[in-house]
């Protein structure tokens, strides 16, 4: 495991998570979450676990994001809080 890459990846994840929370616009939060799962798949691959990385990649970008966007299409796109 290349620890330099790992640390930057995990830092990336933390920044993504904080950004996803603090953003008012829901659609942007959803997109940042899909970026989050993108990097998560890299971290799995980094740790030699290929199948988990595979499912994370397929689920993260493929299903969750599309479902989130579908729900957003129905509800209001901006959070009140």
């Amino acid at each position, binding site marked *: 495991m*290349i620890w*330099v*890459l790992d640390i*930057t*990846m995990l830092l*990336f994840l933390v*920044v*993504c998570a904080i*950004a996803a929370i603090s*953003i008012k*616009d829901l*659609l*942007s939060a959803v*997109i*940042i979450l*899909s*970026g989050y799962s*993108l*990097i998560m*798949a*890299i971290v799995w*691959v*980094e740790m*030699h676990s*290929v199948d988990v*990385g*595979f499912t994370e*990649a*397929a689920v993260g*970008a*493929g299903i969750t*994001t*599309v479902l989130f*966007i579908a729900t*957003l*299409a129905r509800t209001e796109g901006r959070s009140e809080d």
Partner: protein
Amino acid sequence: MTGALLFGTIGMVDVFLAMAILIVMASFVSLYRGIEGPGIFNRIIAVNVIGTKTIVLLVLIGFIYERPDFFDIALVYAILNFIMTIAATRY
């Protein structure tokens, strides 16, 4: 630079490593714009850019570890990134 090459594969792994770190730095920079971006569309491009970068990163890591089964993930990611962008623009 030439010294690393003369040793053949010994030098090459570090080259891949350096490239991987370079790409991670570049995706960090584009993440900054992704979070800063005024509108939604800047963020869509940011994720698109990071997606393309991670594909190259995946292939590089596949080469660093000399395990050939990483490239399917890169392929899947190429398709998913495209689908994600189309889904985001459809809304």
